[in-house]
């Protein structure tokens, strides 16, 4: 069974399109409403998604974690994660899920940099590149887009990898932990969509926190090798 987890915070305008888009590729769609104050939950329910609601905003890492837990309890064999703001193309889902179903990989990251990243603003490109370099150093893998939330996970990797970050840091942390536990991590190109009015996403402060969390992992890697 393939489950799709969609973390969302005030995504009323886009959530319907995302849910309808992934329904074609997933058996169960779980929207984790991270304390939205708009109609995100209502719209997601009307589209046929299962909705879990945080009573207040926890962060994207916390929302993904809640979604993972729910998907595991419902017996998912593979779990797709996709952002609720419409920045990912649901039609890329088969590309992400294929290496999981064929057993080639345990964690597949949809990389905007393996595709055409030109719609991404320059400061985001630079920030994502810098964090990807740090995540690559900490994990020992060559990762081009460690902050991408569009991913496919095998059940085994979700069971074994318990990241601690409640915020944007979950993305890099989960790659580092998966690599350390010997799981196979792969990247596939995805389409980059940056809506003109996109108002959120990791800012400079979030980027600094992610970089700090990733840097913290590097000495642990050196220690584990020694």
């Amino acid at each position, binding site marked *: 069974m393939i489950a799709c987890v969609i973390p969302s915070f005030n995504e*009323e305008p886009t959530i319907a399109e995302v849910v309808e888009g992934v329904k074609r590729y997933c058996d169960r769609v779980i929207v*984790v*409403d991270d*304390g*939205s*104050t*708009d*109609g*995100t*939950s*209502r*719209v997601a*329910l*009307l589209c046929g998604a*299962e*909705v*879990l*609601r*945080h*009573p*207040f905003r*926890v*962060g994207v890492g*916390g929302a993904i*974690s*809640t979604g993972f*837990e*729910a998907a595991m*309890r419902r017996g998912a064999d593979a779990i797709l994660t996709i952002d609720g703001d419409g920045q990912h193309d649901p039609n890329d889902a088969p590309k992400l899920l294929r290496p999981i179903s064929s057993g080639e990989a345990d964690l597949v990251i949809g990389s905007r940099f393996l595709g055409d990243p030109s719609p991404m603003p320059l400061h985001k490109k630079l920030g994502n590149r810098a964090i990807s370099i740090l995540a690559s150093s900490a994990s020992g893998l060559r990762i081009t887009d460690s902050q991408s939330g569009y991913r496919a996970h095998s059940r085994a990797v979700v069971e074994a990898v318990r990241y601690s970050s*409640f915020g944007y840091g979950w993305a890099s942390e989960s790659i580092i932990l998966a690599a350390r536990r010997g799981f196979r991590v792969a990247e596939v190109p995805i389409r980059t969509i940056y809506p003109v009015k996109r108002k959120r996403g990791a800012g400079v402060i979030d980027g600094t926190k992610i970089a700090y969390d990733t840097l913290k992992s590097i000495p642990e890697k050196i220690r584990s090798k020694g």
Partner: protein
Amino acid sequence: MEPYGIIAAILGAFMMALSIRGFLRNDISASSFLAWMAIWAGLSLTGLFPGFYSWLVAALGMATPIHFVTTFSIILLFAIAYQLNRKLDEVNSKLNSMAKEIALGGLGRERPEDGPG
């Protein structure tokens, strides 16, 4: 006695009274109460007897008692800020875990008619 000494003594006594009231109302724990009382007593003593620390100030090679008080206060404030930050992280982590449990427990699961929007 210098005017700043009088102000420090009054402030120390006022804060002591607040701390005692807080302790009697069970607003603060016994260990916090003792720690804060020691701080307020130190503040009052500094105001009332500015020469009280002279021997310590001389031993530490500081010019005046006020240097000792300000240096010690800054260190103490850093320690308190660290402790508060640690506590805040702990509380934040617990709250986030509770939010997750509520969502998974079905309490936060919504029916279409009670959507927030």
